[in-house]
């Protein structure tokens, strides 16, 4: 085997040497033959003649010997490829258009697949990830984090797993040489090393029980491999180094294995810390000590031989009891937040845990589907292009066929040319796809966060791209190749182009193109309408000109009145800056997906109590409504005179309708519950009551994509124990000015705090609607491309038809047909084909619409307006594509056409 390989390669590299060998052997055979014949009595000349006759054609024999080696097949392939390349070079225009078309299709598909793979498919880089499972609290809204108490209960009954760990993704403050920065960190219990089978690249991991609640905190941390390389410059003495984290010293005890950066693709951790470090970060409000704080991901490794199904059944048997008894507050609070009905469940943990995945799971699947259609459309267009090119070369194929070329050879030649174009398209498409993927990642990245995904090109991506690119190219070249191999010499050697056989496939491809185009355009219309509806929707804010600054403080201790006063001073200072109309502090950042709910109740005139656990509380300063633009519908907003007086509130329209249906809410009281629904005999007024002074319009505080919640607005100044304000909002005429002012004043008034994250309301809206924007932008791009391809395709086919039928049309005109009749005939046959395509496309589109139902907003998949828009766009493009060839057909001069041969 090896011998064969070496000999073959040598023959390929030194063909002259091999030929000389073959020649020499044949010569020696000839000589031996002549000698033998002379010995048996022939004369030398006769012997030579006889020997030559025996051998026959020397060339043939030499060729047969050459064919005996595998290198002859390789050599043949190389020749064919070189020939194909030469043929392709002959028509650069065709080559460029084909390569571009393929590149666009491949690029789009590669980009979406890169995203899909990185977010949905990639396994955690740990040994045997298929045996991992993840526990979560599932409700109809998705799955949610677990509290520490529940994790503790589960730890006592590991059941089907050989170990469990709890994990939280967070950010910590790193102080280096006086400069502080925020770095992403992962907090985990020490059991993570055993469960994930993490073997540190350097140093060691945590003890098994490290990070648990009762265990004293060791100030130990591990760095990720990437962070060690970039930030610590692969310092070989990294072990034992200390860093200042959240104002405390941590010792680095190890380096994580390369590639492991946490369990969520969108949160790549630089450091791994013990779970109980959370106490250092959150102080008095440490979630690890609280009941009813949901912040953890819990994962485990199944025991050998145990299946996921068995793990599920084990769970239902025991867990529910433990869950509720471990954390009685859970039930109450989860009903508030998650609309009730949660269950502890277990799913496969191979891909880790990702909130981003939940958001983009469906959109990415839809985009993958559209991508596939896009690729098909590109392939069809390429088929048309190659077919046209082949039609122009039928003469050449006919000659080769007449000279004896096998059909398979002609077919393989065309396929090879197409494959070469496919490779070029693949190279270009790969680059395009990479750039597009990066751009898409910026769309889905949250404000100020690290890039949502760290895209990496691995074997899977390359395999996908190569299969797609070559597959599409070869598929497109199949029919033209067949056509070339069946070039009938008798017909095609003559110049007569009266036959329209080559237009045949073109005619069938038009309906396919139109059908695909219909689906892609329809999807885009639905997605862009959805996005527009979200944006048009009355959000309850006036986003233009509003800039936010996320504030952070030395420590988040709300009893530190000093900090609250500083925050007030900040808002006051900003109010007086030039160019700034108003400023306010707020607790809840709008449109960022945050929420803060509480229990409130009202008493009716007859004593009936109305209570709700789902009232959103936004605390702010008096400039709130003016700054954010939420309109006051009745009564008034906050004024400076309220500050010293009794507690007042403003409620949303929906809250007013709930608490005081059919009554005037102004002057009435709403009281804060304290974690329990109120008893029947609630006092009319208590220190926890707020007097309603105004009704505000409904505002989508949490997210534009969710309905406006019932809201209650209160004043910081009236709250004895306020939370330190999380952000400052500023309304101005110039965003850059506002941003600079915020930064300046924060540096002055809150020295030592981190530089605030600054962003505009519009940026927040963009981030909030990133899912819809992704869908809208990508499907819109596809639709534009589809329109271009369908138009170009129709234009190409019609042009060729007119060219091929020139004589026929000329004759008909000479026989008296009017020009308009010619055009009408052409239009009719085209319209029939387009009609078939539209019907087929409509069926596919209806299917697609049903699949996309859950992604729509404000528009229905069956809306006639949508259908009209789709068909309208298509009709415009198709008519444009029709006009030019039809014009050419109508302007044919009969005499010239007939004379042309």
């Amino acid at each position: 085997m090896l011998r064969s390989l070496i000999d073959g390669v040598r023959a390929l590299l030194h063909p002259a040497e091999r030929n000389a060998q073959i020649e020499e052997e044949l010569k020696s055979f000839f000589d031996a033959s002549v000698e033998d014949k002379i010995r048996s009595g022939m004369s030398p000349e006769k012997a030579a003649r006889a020997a030559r006759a025996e051998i026959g054609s020397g060339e043939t024999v030499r060729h047969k010997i050459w064919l005996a080696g595998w290198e002859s097949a390789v050599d043949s392939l190389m020749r064919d490829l070189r020939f194909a390349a030469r043929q392709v070079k002959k028509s650069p225009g065709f080559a460029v258009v084909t390569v571009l078309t393929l590149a666009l299709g491949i690029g789009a598909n590669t980009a979406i697949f890169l995203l899909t793979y990185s977010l949905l498919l990639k396994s955690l880089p740990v040994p045997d990830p298929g045996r991992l499972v993840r526990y979560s609290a599932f409700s109809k809204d998705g799955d949610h984090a677990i509290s520490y108490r529940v994790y503790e209960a589960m730890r006592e009954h590991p059941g089907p797993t050989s170990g469990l760990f709890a994990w939280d993704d967070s950010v910590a403050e790193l102080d280096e040489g006086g400069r502080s920065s925020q770095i992403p960190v992962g907090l985990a219990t020490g059991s993570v090393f055993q469960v994930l089978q993490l073997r540190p690249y350097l140093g060691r991991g945590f003890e098994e029980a490290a990070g648990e609640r009762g265990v004293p905190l060791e100030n130990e941390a591990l760095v990720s491999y990437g962070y060690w390389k970039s930030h610590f410059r692969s310092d070989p003495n990294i072990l034992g180094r200390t860093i200042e984290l959240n104002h405390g010293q941590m010792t680095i005890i190890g380096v994580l294995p390369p590639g492991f950066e946490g369990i969520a693709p969108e949160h790549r951790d630089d450091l791994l810390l013990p779970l109980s470090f959370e106490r250092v970060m959150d102080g008095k409000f440490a979630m690890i000590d609280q009941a009813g704080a949901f912040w953890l991901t819990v994962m485990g490794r199944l025991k050998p031989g145990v299946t996921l199904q068995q793990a599920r059944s084990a769970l239902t048997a025991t867990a529910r009891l433990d869950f509720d008894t471990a954390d009685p507050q859970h039930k109450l609070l989860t009903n508030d937040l998650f609309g009730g009905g949660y269950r502890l469940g277990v799913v496969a943990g191979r891909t880790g845990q990702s909130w981003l995945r939940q958001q983009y799971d469906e959109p990415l699947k839809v985009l993958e589907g559209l991508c596939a259609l896009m690729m098909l459309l590109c392939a069809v267009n390429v088929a048309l292009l190659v077919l046209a090119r082949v039609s122009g070369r039928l003469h050449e194929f006919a000659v080769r066929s007449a000279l004896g070329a096998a059909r398979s050879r002609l077919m393989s030649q065309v396929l090879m040319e197409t494959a070469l174009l496919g490779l070029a398209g693949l190279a270009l498409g790969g680059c395009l796809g990479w750039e597009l993927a990066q751009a898409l990642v910026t769309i889905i990245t949250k404000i100020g966060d690290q890039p949502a995904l760290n895209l990496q090109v691995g074997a899977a991506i390359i395999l996908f791209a190569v299969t797609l690119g070559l597959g599409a190219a070869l598929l497109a070249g199949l029919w033209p190749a067949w056509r070339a191999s069946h070039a009938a010499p008798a017909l095609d050697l003559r110049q007569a182009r009266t036959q329209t056989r080559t237009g045949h496939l073109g005619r069938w491809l038009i309906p396919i193109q139109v059908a695909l185009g219909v689906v892609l355009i329809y999807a885009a219309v639905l997605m862009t309408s959805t996005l527009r509806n979200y944006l048009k929707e009355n959000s309850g804010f006036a986003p233009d000109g509003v800039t936010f600054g996320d504030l952070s403080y030395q420590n988040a201790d709300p009893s530190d009145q000093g900090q609250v006063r500083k925050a007030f001073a900040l808002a006051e200072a900003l109010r007086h800056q030039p160019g700034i109309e108003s400023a306010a502090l707020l607790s809840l950042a709008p449109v960022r997906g945050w929420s803060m709910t509480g229990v409130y109740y009202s008493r009716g005139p007859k004593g009936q109590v109305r209570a709700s656990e789902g009232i959103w509380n936004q605390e702010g300063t008096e400039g709130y409504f003016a700054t954010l633009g939420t309109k006051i519908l009745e009564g008034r907003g906050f004024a400076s005179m309220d500050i010293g007086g009794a507690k007042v509130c403003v409620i949303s329209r929906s809250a007013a309708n709930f608490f005081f249906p059919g009554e005037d809410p102004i002057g009435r009281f709403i009281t804060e519950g304290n974690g329990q629904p109120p008893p029947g005999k609630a006092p009319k007024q208590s220190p926890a009551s707020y007097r309603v002074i105004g009704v505000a319009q409904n505002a989508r505080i949490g997210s534009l994509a969710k309905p406006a919640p019932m809201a209650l607005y209160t004043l910081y100044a009236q709250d004895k124990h306020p939370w330190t304000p999380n952000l400052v909002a500023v309304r101005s005429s110039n965003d850059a000015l506002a941003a600079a002012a915020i930064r300046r004043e924060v540096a002055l008034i809150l020295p030592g705090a981190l530089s605030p994250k600054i962003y505009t309301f519009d940026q927040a809206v963009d981030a909030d609607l990133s899912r819809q924007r992704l869908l809208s932008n990508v499907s819109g791009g596809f639709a534009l491309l589809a329109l271009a391809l369908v138009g170009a395709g129709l234009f190409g086919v019609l042009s060729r038809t007119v060219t091929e039928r020139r004589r026929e049309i000329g004759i008909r005109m000479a026989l008296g047909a009017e020009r308009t009749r010619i055009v009408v005939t052409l239009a009719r046959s085209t319209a029939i084909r387009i009609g078939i395509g539209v019907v087929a496309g409509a069926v596919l589109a209806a299917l697609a619409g049903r699949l996309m139902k859950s992604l729509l907003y404000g528009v229905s998949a069956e809306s006639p307006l949508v259908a009209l828009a789709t068909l309208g766009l298509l009709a415009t493009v198709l008519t444009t594509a029709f006009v030019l060839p039809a014009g050419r057909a109508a302007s044919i001069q009969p005499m010239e056409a007939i004379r042309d041969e």
Partner: protein
Amino acid sequence: MGAESRDLVQGTLEMLVLKTLALESMHGYGISLRIEQISNGVFRINPGSLLPALSRLERSGRVRGEWRASENNRRARYYTLTAAGRKALEQECRQWGRQVAAISRILEA
């Protein structure tokens, strides 16, 4: 069967060549002559079939070829059977024997 070696299946030709070389090393023409002689002229192998067959056998390691001076002091490529070739020959002979026996049984049935 005609005198054309084209009627011989490729595998059978290689088996005959191996057998011929089992007796002594020979060059191409010598093999062709020997096969013709032993088969009483039934098989005449022309170089267009023999030389490619020898090339294949050499590639698969069943024979070893080297340039030597022939009986007339001319250069000729002599082929020798290798150990692998000997084993292959045994296998092919057994296979052939089975086929022949089966065909005979059918014809005499």
